[in-house]
């Protein structure tokens, strides 16, 4: 018959193999609940409200003089920086002799809806820095901020420059108007006052919606096809499940912080214009005069390079380095590239500056 469609038997074989993989997946793969993220040992050395400061156990005999505090983002959780022993940002730093502390912002609840930038930057972050200074007997610390944590670290470095010896900004959100991501387009059109008045804290579901519009077909279909195709590859599956577990767990953002975040950073873009006020104090990026190391990813679809890079050109520092890497937002901190190139370059810089 002329209308007959010829299908290559290889396609049928692939489809049958795919169905078999889907059927066998539950036997081969650990469920997300059973996976433990963050395996590098640490002690919780300081707690305030829901915030915890973690001090990672050293892995070298000698350590750099200046301890490093990592201010993680307010979206998702700190586990991404210790997602897998072979791709752990924290473990790599420890192996290079860095004394690592990290802030876990915890899970805000309704009672925390009035927490704002002032509480986070001049309260929690400052108290963590003061604690580390006392514990390590140093006058200043190195401060790293990732993503939205980079914004908080930038504000802190501007308001408390006397406490920061080195500032490392990893994909920081700085110039909201230059951000070319789809997320910035959404948040620019949101009536954030109404949002906070009625909903209170920003619910995680809103974040999940924002994630869902980032490359929806690659991330929503192709990613899972690849997962089932590679179901017998233990390393692939393990990495996949860890990242999936991390992605699906984001805490709420306190209402007031969310309001200031959207208005001051994305809608009015006050930070880069040196017009932002936090706790009544003027934030000027020109006050950042300590050595600065900025890390940006060209393929970042959450915080575009155009949004992060202006930090490098706006600070008062004379000693400043801008590194641009061929990866994405997560790839920058949890990939083989980060282990082989990004971290060694950062650690070398820290060794020189500590």
């Amino acid at each position: 018959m002329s209308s007959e469609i010829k299908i290559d038997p290889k396609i049928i074989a692939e489809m049958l193999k795919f169905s078999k993989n889907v059927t066998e997946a539950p036997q081969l793969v650990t469920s997300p609940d059973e996976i433990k993220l963050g395996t590098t040992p640490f002690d919780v050395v300081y707690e305030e409200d829901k915030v915890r400061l973690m001090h990672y156990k050293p892995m070298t005999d000698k350590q750099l003089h200046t301890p490093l505090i990592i201010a993680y983002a307010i979206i998702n959780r700190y586990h991404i920086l210790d997602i897998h022993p072979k791709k752990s940002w924290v473990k790599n730093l420890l192996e290079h002799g860095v004394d690592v502390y990290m802030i876990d912002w915890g899970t805000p609840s309704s009672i925390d809806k009035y927490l704002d930038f002032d509480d986070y930057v001049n309260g929690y972050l400052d108290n963590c820095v003061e604690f580390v200074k006392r514990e390590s007997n140093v006058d200043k610390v190195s401060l790293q901020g990732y993503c939205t944590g980079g914004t908080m670290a930038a504000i802190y470095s501007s308001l408390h420059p006397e406490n920061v010896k080195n500032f490392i900004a990893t994909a920081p959100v700085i110039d909201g108007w230059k951000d070319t991501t789809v997320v910035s387009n959404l948040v620019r059109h949101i009536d954030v006052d109404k949002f906070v008045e009625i909903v209170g804290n920003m619910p995680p579901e809103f974040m999940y919606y924002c994630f869902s519009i980032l490359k929806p077909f690659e991330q929503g279909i192709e990613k899972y096809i690849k997962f089932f195709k590679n179901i017998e590859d233990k390393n692939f599956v393990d990495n996949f499940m860890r990242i999936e577990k991390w992605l699906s767990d984001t805490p709420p953002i306190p209402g007031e912080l969310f309001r200031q975040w959207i208005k001051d950073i994305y809608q009015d873009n006050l930070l880069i214009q040196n017009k932002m006020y936090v706790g009544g104090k003027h934030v000027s990026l020109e006050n950042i005069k300590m050595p600065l190391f900025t890390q940006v990813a060209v393929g970042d679809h959450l915080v575009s390079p155009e949004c992060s890079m202006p930090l490098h050109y706006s600070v008062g520092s004379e000693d400043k380095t801008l590194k641009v890497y061929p990866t994405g937002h997560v790839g920058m901190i949890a990939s083989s590239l980060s282990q082989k190139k990004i971290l060694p370059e950062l650690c070398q810089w820290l060794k020189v500056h500590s």
Partner: protein
Amino acid sequence: MKPESTKNVAEYYRHLSLFWTDLIHLMSSKPQALTSIGPMRNFTENAKKITTELIDGSAVLIEFNNSLTEYYRQLIDTWNESQKKVNFKAPKIPNDPEQYEAYKRVWIDIFDNDFTELFDSKKFGENYGKLVAKELELTKHWNNIMNVMLQSANLPNKQEIDDVYRELHSLRKRISKLESKLRAKNTVKDDVK
């Protein structure tokens, strides 16, 4: 139906409902006083507030539906446009694994590009903003209804709980500042020693 006429219809039903709610309330207030006591009496007295919220909520629901329809229209239009592009670029049905893989790649790339363009557009952003705003207004009407019911049952409503949260936040802040000052004072004392 034009928006103006939609408004008129909503106004008409609003008036009608309030008229009967008020009248029934007036007519039944005396017998009610005899039969209903305690919090539930309070609740029946507040029935008018609930009716008002429901009517206002219905008007918002119409606007919400308009934005929601526009939201889905944008998604469907983009989907159709993308599929046309895919058909143009890869007209043949793939019949071996390599062709199938190439077809899938083309499909995903075109769909991701077109949808990213949509999500990045002003028209999507504006409509999404309106959609969220209307959803929030609906939530507010629901909250207001809940507040009436909670008050009737002598329980704290959202506003009162928010006031407590605000007060707690202020207290926590003051304590934290006092602790910092105390720590600084002790550090100076230790240094002197």
